[in-house]
């Protein structure tokens, strides 16, 4: 069966006047099947957000796609004209951003912002759009008698704002929703609430979800498959349980070990060093300077993918036959 989204060898660079070109993504390849929940795990600066923006073809001016393709339902988005991509954004692939406060328009009432999405993609009367938007707000957990419709974004809490952003994202029933760190800006209670909402919507609407995060716990909630990214490359990919419980790549192992586990183990085990500067990546495997299992070959060339077990791939020479 053809996957819903198939990303192949995408390589993106950023240019700037005073620094050498920065390689943000390097040969990123993965697929998302219809109705599947995929988690993308990585630390800041590893290219997570660049990847999300590439999928929507809304990269900033300074970015350049060197090669690769993003095939969504049989069409390569990277070769589409802007008008064609606009039809996909929101209706085919929609996005929930990290900061709901910045994603919503501060001077438009919440209800109008949700119905605006509907009218942009479908021909419908204002009254019909209003009705639809009301039912969307119900779906994301607002009470029927709530006054949210007439509220401005600043009158809502962070969690409520994120619910509105999710209502916008699911308005046109897109087959794929990208959630870029949807819980990072929220407090604990709201984080739990938003993840539960995304999970129930995914099941109810049968949509595929790509959750981008730098924390592991959101991934344990409902994700089927996990991609781990380091310095612009996907270094490990596999079923969520396998990757989170028995990770293969030394980076994934380090990332999981650095989280506190259980009360009062006095010291944590962080990965030594800091993530590399993307303008100045080390030769060979980008993780080699921080890796505890480093071998000679790691300094010479970047590892290809090995598959020690079915559907679990890892870019590390440790697993070379």
């Amino acid at each position, binding site marked *: 069966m053809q996957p819903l989204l198939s990303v192949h060898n995408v390589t993106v660079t950023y240019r700037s006047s005073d620094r050498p070109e920065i390689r943000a993504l390097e040969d990123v390849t993965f697929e998302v099947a219809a109705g599947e929940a995929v988690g993308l795990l990585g*630390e*800041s600066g590893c290219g997570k957000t660049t990847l999300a923006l590439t999928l929507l073809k809304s990269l900033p001016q300074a970015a350049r796609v060197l090669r690769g393709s993003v095939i969504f339902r049989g069409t390569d988005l990277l070769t589409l004209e802007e008008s064609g991509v606009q039809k996909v954004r929101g209706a085919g692939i929609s996005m929930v951003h990290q900061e709901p406060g910045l994603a919503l328009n501060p001077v438009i009432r919440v209800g109008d912002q949700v119905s605006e999405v509907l009218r942009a993609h479908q021909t419908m009367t204002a009254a019909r759009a209003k009705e639809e938007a009301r039912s969307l707000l119900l779906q994301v*957990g*607002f*009470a029927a*008698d*709530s*006054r*949210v419709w007439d*509220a401005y974004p600043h*009158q*809502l*809490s*962070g969690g*409520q704002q994120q619910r509105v952003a999710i209502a916008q994202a699911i308005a046109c029933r897109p087959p794929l929703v990208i959630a870029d760190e949807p819980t*990072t800006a929220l*407090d*604990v*209670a*709201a*984080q*739990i*609430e938003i993840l539960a909402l995304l999970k129930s919507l995914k099941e109810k609407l049968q949509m595929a979800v790509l959750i981008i995060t*730098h*924390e*592991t*716990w959101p991934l344990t909630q409902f994700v089927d498959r996990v991609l781990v990214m380091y310095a612009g490359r996907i270094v490990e990919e596999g079923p969520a349980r396998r990757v989170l419980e028995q990770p293969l790549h030394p980076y994934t192992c*380090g*990332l999981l070990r*650095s*989280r*506190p*586990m*259980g*009360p*009062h*183990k*006095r*010291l*944590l*085990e*962080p*990965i030594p060093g*800091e*993530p590399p500067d993307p303008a100045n990546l080390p030769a060979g495997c980008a993780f080699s300077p921080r890796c505890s299992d480093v071998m000679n070959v790691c300094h010479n060339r970047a590892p290809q993918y090995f598959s020690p077990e079915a559907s679990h791939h890892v870019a590390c020479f440790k697993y070379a036959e």
Partner: protein
Amino acid sequence: MQSDSPQSREAVLCCTRLSKRYTQGGWLSKNRREVQALKDVSLSVRTGSTLALIGESGSGKSTLARCLTCLEQPDSGEIWFAGRNVAALTHRERVAFQRQIQIVFQEPAASLNPRLNALEIVSEPLLIAGESKKQRHERALYLMHLVGLPDDSPKRLPSEFSGGQRRRLAIARALTLEPSILILDESLSGLDPSIQAQISNLLTGLQETYHLTYICISHDLDLVAHLADEIAVLHQGQIVKLVPAPIDLADLHDEFMGRLQRAEKASSFGAGLP
């Protein structure tokens, strides 16, 4: 007024029935109303231990921390430090008391002066305290080394450090006056897991070496369970639960989820609306 501390001798800092109200809106505003930020909060922190404050945003965590450090004057209630009532201190004693409590703020990029270099940032509190230049610089260099900043740090500006290094810089500055209590206001949030673990280990190490007391405000349940000796759960200005170590995460999770569901049933939407 009571003559001695109501809490045990071990407690370095404690407060009894602390209340604080804020007025929202200007005095001519139509929507002027009062918000009860803290309501009868009593707690105590033992020397060398870590107390964590958790709760939703707006539950009073930061107000409590600000009251305990005298940055905010509580409406009622008492604060005791090392067996003495803070309200009864003379001016000179109060200055000494405030040196004992330092805050590491949430976002160091916003709390460090962007035009001072690292050396000036770390030594500035000593300048205010009137120490000589040589002493200031010696202490600052020692602290920067202690928190693990690289050797070329002193001349660099805050913007030239990575996120993790900026946290280290903020911690060094907070330690300059040799405080006994550090308030960590979301000091570990917004960091990547591996860097967060490095800073967390740094804080644990400093606590053991210098017998520091931490009051830690955080949203990260796992991290809080790891660091804290006691957790106070705040809700609408009140402590609804005090959990001593060892902390059972599942228990805390239930507490949060339960409250959430109750809130949803009551359908209290509109609390934030005018």
